[in-house]
């Protein structure tokens, strides 16, 4: 973790008024598995969580509240928040306080029960106990103001734009990301209702056309290196008639080598490939979810490394990330972003280390001969242990196949990066097109069975 880099701003990410050891609440983009964090998760799970009521109607603030949250409602709430601060100032209160709910630092422990763990409450006060508290308060108020402005003007801002408004105040991007998510969590709405989007991170390419409401259109094959994942608006129409499959690729490098391959001419005409460059952002996930909702007959596959991070990334696409669980609350007009029908395309353990020279099995033979199989690091093993402990890879979790692959990795102490597939005759892309054919036949068989 970056404890040594600009500690000043890092402290903004620490929970206020916590007696926990330092660093236990450092916000980290991907879940780093420090023992501290695990311990903290455990402690949190065993504490009764008191939930402060922030909703007007007085319902206990579970995520299942069924009120209609629209733009006016959100504006009203943010104004209430800001107003209470102004009133506090006018009344010359000694301490001004904003109550926020957060999911940062929550574990995946309860994911399996199908319930979203309740958020924790944090209090942000001014002047607070020290300069950090005061600064944190200022950050939150400034973000509330920016969101309010976006909503009033009805413009969409990226988290990146927000950061660049006041880089000196925010210090670094994760500070903005975290408090924006906390504000969404507090209001119990997806972030898009705050008119804030993540900076577009994902790339997509393929034979689709997005016809915008204003008459313009976005073509999936317009750029040789793919286009930024677009945000689909209600007035847009998506033409997917040429797309037969959707492939989500963990790594940008692999995405690029697919697009630069001579075979892409054929593949790209019948499918869609997307990469969010590692752990996926909400924009990419929402785009995929849109495709899954509108085109349920198109199979969706994930190509990730055979290592604990790869499985975790696939899990984030399929089951979502708990830190942003409020994004998944299914509401009437704001569907969740999970992809329950995402299928595991590769890399799987049966793709590696088989007998060389077995008749009719040249594919695996070639793989066995390569040296692309690597040993697990201590971090990999630790991560695998934590994943086996709870959630979808737990003993009674919903993904027994993933659990088995994690255990096989631990048994053999090996992992496989998808680049190994490039060592095959014809390279990764020819393997891909063969596998897509295999998967297509398999799903055709399934259809005949049922």
């Amino acid at each position, binding site marked *: 973790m970056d404890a040594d880099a600009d500690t000043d701003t890092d402290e903004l990410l620490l929970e206020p008024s916590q007696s926990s050891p330092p660093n236990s609440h450092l916000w980290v983009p991907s879940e780093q598995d420090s023992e501290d964090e695990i311990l903290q998760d455990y402690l949190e799970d065993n504490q009764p969580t008191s939930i402060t009521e922030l909703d007007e109607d007085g319902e206990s603030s579970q995520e299942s509240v069924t009120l209609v949250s629209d733009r006016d409602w959100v504006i009203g709430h943010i104004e209430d928040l800001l107003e209470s601060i102004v009133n506090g100032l006018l009344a010359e209160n000694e301490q001004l306080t904003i109550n926020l709910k957060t999911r940062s630092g929550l574990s995946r422990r309860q994911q399996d029960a199908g319930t979203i763990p309740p958020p924790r409450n944090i209090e942000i006060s001014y002047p607070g106990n020290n300069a950090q508290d005061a600064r944190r308060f200022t950050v939150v108020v400034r973000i509330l103001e920016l969101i309010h402005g976006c909503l009033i003007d009805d413009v969409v801002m990226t988290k990146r734009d927000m950061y660049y408004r006041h880089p000196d105040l925010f210090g670094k991007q994760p500070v903005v990301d975290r408090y924006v998510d906390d504000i969404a969590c507090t209001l119990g709405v997806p972030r898009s209702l705050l008119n804030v989007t993540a900076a577009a991170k994902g790339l997509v390419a393929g034979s689709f056309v997005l016809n915008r409401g204003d008459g313009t259109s976005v073509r999936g094959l317009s750029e040789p290196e793919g286009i930024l994942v677009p945000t689909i608006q209600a007035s847009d129409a998506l033409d997917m008639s040429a797309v037969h499959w959707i492939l989500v690729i963990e790594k940008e490098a692999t995405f690029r080598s697919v697009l630069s391959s001579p075979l892409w001419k054929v593949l790209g005409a019948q499918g869609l490939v997307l990469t969010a460059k590692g752990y996926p952002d909400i924009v990419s996930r929402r785009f995929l979810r849109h495709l899954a909702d509108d085109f349920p007959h198109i199979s969706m596959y994930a190509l990730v490394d055979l290592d604990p991070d790869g499985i975790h990334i696939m899990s984030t696409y399929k089951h979502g990330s708990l830190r942003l669980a409020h994004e998944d609350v299914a509401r009437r007009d704001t569907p969740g972003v999970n992809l329950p029908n995402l299928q595991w395309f590769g890399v799987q353990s*049966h793709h590696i*280390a*088989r007998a*060389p020279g077995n008749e009719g099995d040249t594919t695996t033979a070639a793989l*066995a001969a390569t040296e692309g199989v690597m040993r697990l690091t201590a971090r990999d*093993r630790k991560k695998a*242990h934590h994943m086996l402990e709870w959630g979808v890879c737990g003993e009674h979790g919903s993904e027994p196949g993933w659990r088995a692959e994690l255990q096989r990795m631990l048994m053999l102490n090996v992992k496989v990066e998808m680049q190994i597939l490039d060592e095959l005759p014809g390279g990764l892309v020819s393997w891909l097109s063969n596998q897509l054919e295999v998967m297509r036949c398999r799903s055709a068989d399934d259809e005949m069975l049922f």
Partner: protein
Amino acid sequence: MSKQYLTLHTLSDAHPSDVFALAPTTKSILSASGSSTIHIHDTTQADFPLLQSLEGVHPLGIHHLATAREARRAASAGFEGRVKIWSEGEDGTWKADGEISDQLKAGDVWAIALSADGKYLACSSINGKINVWSLAEEGKPKIRDYETKGSFGMCVDLSRDGRFTASGHENGSIYVFDNDTGRLTHSLAGLVKPVRSVAFSPSTTLLAAAGDSRTIALYDVKSGEQIANLAGHGGWVLTLDWSDTGEYLLSGSHDGKAKIWRIETRQCVATHAHGDKPLWTAKWLPKSTRSEMFALGGGNNAISFYREAAG
């Protein structure tokens, strides 16, 4: 000259996921998998009925099991890093009998082996250390602590007489330690790729070792010299076991194939396919009145029993 082995019985779906470990006793066989449960099946009856299940033993799954050849004791190691000891009562029921209580973390213990009398437990670890615990003493103290060069100890074995501990490592190293003196007896050369199984012959004269190099190396325990190389497996060799008499060696591979080797002639005398999934464990059953039998367990979640064809 080849030998014939016939499938006697298959317990399909013996476990809900990969069967990682089998450990026989005189009348039963213990099995463990990626689930948290140890099953114990009767090996004296034709349909190998389930006798007992030890449930919720290691929540992250169980990677190794060991039984003592001449005592009613077993040990299990789970992915969470704990080692539990089990004892069989007079009525044949298995009960928990404590665990190794040194503050173990995941990876401190990997492979495990029990001495024939069940008094000693040897363990390898991720950091390459090889430890021996005395199970008969109060508090189950650690009595030996062998340092190696830090490469992952993927497998371990104790000689039947309890005198030697052998370990195989990810960097290809094989070590033999003398438990009486606490000293390194041999550092064996020959394999450069990960060593995934080591096994002493019943008389402790030979040590077999194998892994990703796909060949099985035989060493003279006394001199430390390599005396044979058994080639034939197409995949990584994951498991080795000597027959009771020391005449045959059973091996299992990542490609799902099991082979039986006649030590006298150094020939492979039989090959069996247990599906195409990894064959994690292959064990002879102690010789009873019936002909020689062995059991295979692996990635197809099944346990299969084979016996030598009569005649």
